[in-house]
């Protein structure tokens, strides 16, 4: 394929993408400004933009953002520690892998969101129930990937290192860890994404503070324009966090 045609394709597909977004915003504007769609159902994009600027300028989002990020950090820290430790110990024996891996994978297929009412009962409406749900949901991809990373290192590397007299520590540092690291990182990224989702979700369903709570609060007050602005804000924050995580994963893998 020629370079010229390739470039022409790229420009064409880019223009479709841009056209799609422009058409969407234009329809949105026309619909709300001229065609009489209710302000409560769909606010005018100009209003949403004004609200967004107001939110960012006033710093009103800060307490909620802090709550959500603290919950996320706590949940992710717990599930990382527990998941990697447990995964490592299970992966040390093929027998334990055979016993525990199907068990964990089975649990993984239960929609963890079902536990939210239980967690609200146990830990209350505050951050406790959010941290618990975020931990539960992110634990499984992390532990399963840790098992997959450490447990399925090619036998020939281990035999080679042993026969050349590697100590346990050397084995871990130079054979097991480099082999397992990329797989574990993928697990961490998956865990991070679902933990963020779970925390936003549980804040939406039952909470006292946090970004999800703020959106619901505005929805119930029918302040749709401000709600749209907050939705945009949260989507951008989530996208930034997830992009940061994927970039970290890619860079660490390349080394």
């Amino acid at each position, binding site marked *: 394929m020629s370079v010229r045609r390739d470039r022409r*394709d*790229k420009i*064409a*597909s*880019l223009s*479709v*993408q841009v056209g*799609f977004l422009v058409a969407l915003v234009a329809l949105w504007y026309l619909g709300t400004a001229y065609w009489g769609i209710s302000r*409560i*159902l769909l606010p005018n994009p100009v209003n949403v933009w004004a609200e967004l600027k107001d939110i960012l300028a006033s710093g009103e989002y800060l307490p909620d953002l802090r709550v959500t990020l603290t919950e996320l950090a706590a949940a992710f820290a717990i599930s990382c520690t527990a998941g990697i430790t447990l995964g490592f110990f299970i992966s040390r024996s093929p*027998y334990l892998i*055979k*016993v*525990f891996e*199907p*068990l964990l994978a*089975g649990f993984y*297929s*239960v*929609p963890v*969101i*079902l*536990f*939210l*009412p*239980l967690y*609200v*009962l*146990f830990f209350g409406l505050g951050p406790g129930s959010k941290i618990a749900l975020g931990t539960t949901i992110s634990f499984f991809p992390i532990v399963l990937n840790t098992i997959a990373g450490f447990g399925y290192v090619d036998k020939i590397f281990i035999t080679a290192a042993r026969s050349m007299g590697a100590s346990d520590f050397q084995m871990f540092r130079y054979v097991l860890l480099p082999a397992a690291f990329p797989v574990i990182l993928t697990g961490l990224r998956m865990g991070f994404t679902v933990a*963020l*989702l779970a925390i*936003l*979700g549980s804040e*939406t*369903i039952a909470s006292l503070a946090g970004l*999800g709570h703020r*959106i*619901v609060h*505005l*929805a*119930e007050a029918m302040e*749709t324009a401000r*709600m749209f602005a907050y*939705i945009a804000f*949260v*989507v951008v924050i*989530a*996208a930034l966090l*997830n992009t940061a995580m994927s970039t970290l994963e890619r860079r660490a893998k390349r080394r």
Partner: protein
Amino acid sequence: MSEHLRLKRAFLRHPGLARLAVMIVLFALWEIVARVWIDPTFLSPPSRVLASLGDLFDTKGIPVALRITFWELAIAFAISVVIGLTVGLAVGLSRFSNRSLMPIILLLYGTPQITILPLFILYFGIGPPSKIAFGVSHGIFPIIVTIVAGVQNIKPILMTAAHSMGARRWQIFRWVIFPHMIPTFFAGMRLGMAGVLLGVLLAELYVSTAGIGYFTQLFTQAFEPTKLLGLVSVLAAMAIALNEIVRRAEVHFGRWRTD
């Protein structure tokens, strides 16, 4: 050989047996902890939960709520499969639409849709339609992405061979693309089912007037852990069963492919 050694050997030979033992130990721990240490307004032992399942189904409204939730799941899944398959094929089969539309789809797939849950309630009301719509919004993207990936993974040599032997567009679709799509289709269905479960249950828990979300909230506020645990177990069983059906289908229809 002593009894002890024989037991050990049985466990070593059958990991499934050990798995069962682990589960029994966990349930026993839960039973003991719940009976001895924890306040019964927060946690009940599994034996009591099991015993009260009959009571739970006799509670007015619960069977209806479970039926509503099941139909929400089924309808949302059916709609997701139809839309996901159509869009996935349309996007995947043309190089141009793939390059121009796929980034938009991936962008939408990557956004945390939970943030727009209040909008779904605003547009579709608090009844089943909002749950179905939210389930569909979670279900279609994994299906689209899987189908597109599946279409792209068809070896070009097969297409070229079919072409050079004079196959028409429809024939290529019927004899090359379609058989190759079956495993992908079921893999997409499995992921779609997980998404639909998440979406419908999220929406149910968020606001509900007659579905299971109403009852989980009722039991939480009334501090009735026995009934709450029972209801959650029944739902988990339903979710596992639905997941298992699509997973079995995936294995069953994917077995002809040996590579």
